[in-house]
């Protein structure tokens, strides 16, 4: 059973990110002029102010930059423990995603582990969770 989650409200800026999983794609906003990735996504480049920005699919792999094993039941329905991690996204320098590492025991997670996206669909949202590679 999927963990209870509070889902994001989709809007013009974030819809591509939260629905990319329908096509199996992790998508990030990118400036088409200076090639900077813009996350959180916005309709303007934070480096060069270009408005020529478009979502681009990235490989969907990354490296665990840091993590924590959460034991606190912040609400009664929460199943603990689980891993919250900050994943550095391959091919998108400077972009990190906060996510959950799934598919392994919580004590099998470490900084530097290579991970791949695994989407979890809840309604119209595809949450980019990650699992260890190999």
């Amino acid at each position, binding site marked *: 059973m999927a963990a209870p989650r*509070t889902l994001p*409200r989709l809007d013009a800026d974030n819809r591509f990110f939260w629905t990319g999983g329908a096509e199996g794609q992790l998508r990030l906003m990118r400036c088409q002029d200076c090639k900077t990735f813009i996350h959180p996504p916005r309709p303007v480049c934070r480096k060069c102010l270009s408005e020529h920005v478009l979502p681009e699919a990235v490989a969907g792999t990354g490296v665990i930059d840091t993590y*924590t094993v959460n034991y606190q039941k912040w609400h009664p329905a929460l199943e603990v423990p689980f891993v*919250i991690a900050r994943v550095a996204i391959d091919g998108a320098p400077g972009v990190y995603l906060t996510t959950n590492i799934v598919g392994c025991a919580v004590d099998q997670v470490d*900084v530097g582990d290579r991970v791949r996206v695994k989407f979890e669909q809840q309604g119209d949202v595809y*949450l980019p969770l990650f699992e260890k590679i190999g």
Partner: protein
Amino acid sequence: MMSTSEAYISGVGQSQVGIKLTRSPLLLTVDAIREALDEAGLTLGQIDGVSTYPGRVAAMPGFSPIGADELIDALGIRATWYAGGGEITSQLGAVVGAAAAVRTGQARHVICYRTVYEAAALARPEEYPVQRRERVDGNSQWFAPFNALSAATWTAQYAMRHVKRYGLTREQLAQIALTGRANAAVNPRALVREPLSMDEYLSARMISTPLCLYDCDRFTDASTVLIVSSGDALDEVACKPIRIAAMAGTVERLSWDQAEWMACYATGADLWKRTDYKPEDVDTAQLYDGFSFQAIAWLEALGFCGVGEGGKFIEGGQRIARVGELPLNTFGGQIGAGRLHGFGFAHEAVTQLRGNGGARQIQGDPRLAVCTSGGGPLATALLLARD
């Protein structure tokens, strides 16, 4: 003509500090204001400015129940300048704003306050209803869907980097809580008055690794007040004024996970660029410890030790004890004294510099103190001097 006088802290005050208090948050604020006015020898009629963080937050009424404009109206203050908002460099940013106001002649005496009522609000949902969100937006959307629901889980990830990169141990991390609780035991207003042992710490349940129960502050009901006075108005002040010798603040990437590093590191470096004082001149440090690791990061950020050396710096606890070379969080910090939310650190810095610490007063003749707030993408540091 613009005044360029210095800014000082005159009176400081604090209400009762507790859990599930029934006295209203406005009256707690008034209690703290009365105490601060008494110490400063000022009357309400001399107050012409008000500053707070984060102003009234309607969606989270216990988090910040009293807005600046409500306080001004309730007390009949004639304000020529006021501000209340959360979009500043953390809680003590309200003091930075007030200092800027008096230095540019916008006001002479500014009440700065932080009132928290989260424990009472949680206990009385009929008065303070919890607002349920069907969906999240803004910054929350990058955390809540992954059940990263508390700043504890965000701070824990910063702490874990120190564990992995620099070998920070639980025994080292424990010294923030142990020191705070030892100091809280001799602070009559502290929320928790019993000391904490290393065994108790090490056997506590985990909240979010490496942070255990005792690494986290908890909801508290209290109000803390500092009056910022212009150097041009010190002849009206009865207490020994404490000069704001330097101020610094930073906002990193607001989304905690996009920041390369905590904002305190830039703030700490900036603070020393704005003064001739050096870290070794500091007699006591009052450093934000909503989560224990934040105080370690601040020790590094302010140059008391190198980056990554914070764990070793506090090992054993002697150095940061009340009788140590750098007494830390002598009132108990937020972990011991309660979640006063940033303002407690400035209140204690002033108290120590005036020699008013009572049983917790540090030795010697302290003349310089640093106090901070913020622990993620926001940070503020104040250097306070008794001339």
